[in-house]
């Protein structure tokens, strides 16, 4: 699914990713952990095709990132910090706009289904600008999966969500995981990472410093593993 070799990403003079190597198999759900500024979000942006690598080889869905961006984009969903939603539009209008760009068939039906799935059927035609953070995030995840991607990239998806919204988000990830979707989730929420993910990678100073399966699905276990590696670094 994803094969990254010696990935380097420089922003100005600053080297964010330093010869990073990573391999992800189909259907895996991976937590991307690490201190602030380690390069986690940058890695996701490279995989999402927002950033071009400075050097290195990135293969996604068997396609080289430098060869056919649109083929990769067709199969990839990305949920960054920002919602990417148009606030004067309703959830339905937002999903229909993005769905058209992805060439989604039966778009109205698919959009309505997703809005119901994220629990916003009652607000389907209300402008997003009046929504709470949790509601916006739910529409944002519906946007990210409108085209049934094979790869889902989530950047701190649980931040600022209430318990109900967390539950809905996790349900969406679980449902799509069962359908075979591969998920990479940058997070600082160890509880959610332990609940949702099969594997964790720790990124420090632009490289993958640890990569292990989540054997015990508890926050404490994952936090201990993280602290062993990262220690007091922030």
């Amino acid at each position, binding site marked *: 699914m994803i094969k990254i070799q010696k990935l380097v990403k420089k922003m100005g003079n600053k080297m964010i990713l330093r010869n990073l190597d990573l391999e992800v198999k189909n259907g895996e759900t991976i937590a991307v952990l690490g201190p602030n500024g380690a390069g986690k979000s940058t890695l996701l942006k490279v995989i999402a095709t927002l950033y071009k690598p400075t050097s290195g080889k990135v293969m996604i869905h068997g396609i080289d990132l430098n060869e056919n961006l*649109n083929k990769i*984009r067709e199969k*990839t969903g990305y949920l960054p910090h920002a919602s990417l*939603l148009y606030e004067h*539009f309703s959830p339905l209008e937002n999903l229909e706009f993005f769905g058209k*760009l992805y060439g989604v068939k039966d778009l109205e039906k698919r959009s309505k289904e997703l809005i119901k799935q994220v629990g916003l059927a009652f607000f389907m035609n209300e402008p997003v600008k009046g929504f709470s953070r949790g509601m916006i995030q739910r529409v944002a995840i519906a946007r990210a999966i409108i085209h049934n991607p094979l790869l889902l990239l989530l950047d701190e998806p649980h931040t600022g969500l209430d318990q109900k919204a967390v539950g809905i988000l996790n349900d969406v990830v679980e449902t799509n995981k069962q359908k075979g979707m591969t998920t990479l989730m940058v997070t600082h929420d160890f509880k959610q990472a332990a609940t949702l993910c099969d594997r964790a990678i720790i990124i420090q100073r632009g490289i993958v410093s640890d990569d292990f399966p989540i054997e015990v699905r508890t926050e404490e276990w994952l936090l201990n593993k993280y602290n062993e590696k990262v220690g007091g670094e922030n």
Partner: protein
Amino acid sequence: MSILRNALTIAGKDLRAERKSKQVLPTMLVFAVLVIVVFSFAFDPDKESTKALIPGLIWIVSIFSAILGLNRSFISELKNDNIQGMIIAPVNSISIFLGKFFANFVMILIVQAIAIPMLFLLFDYQFNGSLPWLLLTIFTGTFGFVGIGSFLSAIASNSGISEMLLPLLLFPIATPALIGIVSATKIILRHPDQIEKAYGWLQLVGGYDIIFFGICIVLFDYILEV
């Protein structure tokens, strides 16, 4: 075909957003009307010399109204990083540029459709020239100006001073087209018997439109690149 289809989707989204938010078009219209009213009081419409101002006024109103809209064109995409949503979609960058161009073009045409008849009315100007030629001139001039303006607004939107930066970038580049289009408009409105001279100016502006529009399409991908 998918490039054009996606461009129309993006343009439709922009026009729909404008219909809902009513932020840009009313501002452009108010500005255009205000300029025309002020000029109609400043100059005596009965004097023949005042009529000579009309070709220039048409383009002053069009250009400065367009700047208001162009400024918002890409800034409006920054609020929730909306532009990223289009970049990560399987959409050619040309579609994004064309979509923005179409939406800006339609909005300025709406302003012109209201402002130019109003200008003629308040300046008591009896139009005796060729209407198709006038429409062709307005279309050609607006096309070039909005094309390069849409491109530069994408560049300026990444700056914190985009409102100031856009005119600074746009006016020097658009000057050849503006000179040509004002000259063509002057001939069509004031000397309709010398229409062949207007054709020469229109060829110049048409050439400018094709060259700069092509450059914008080729280079737009680099603006989106990080």
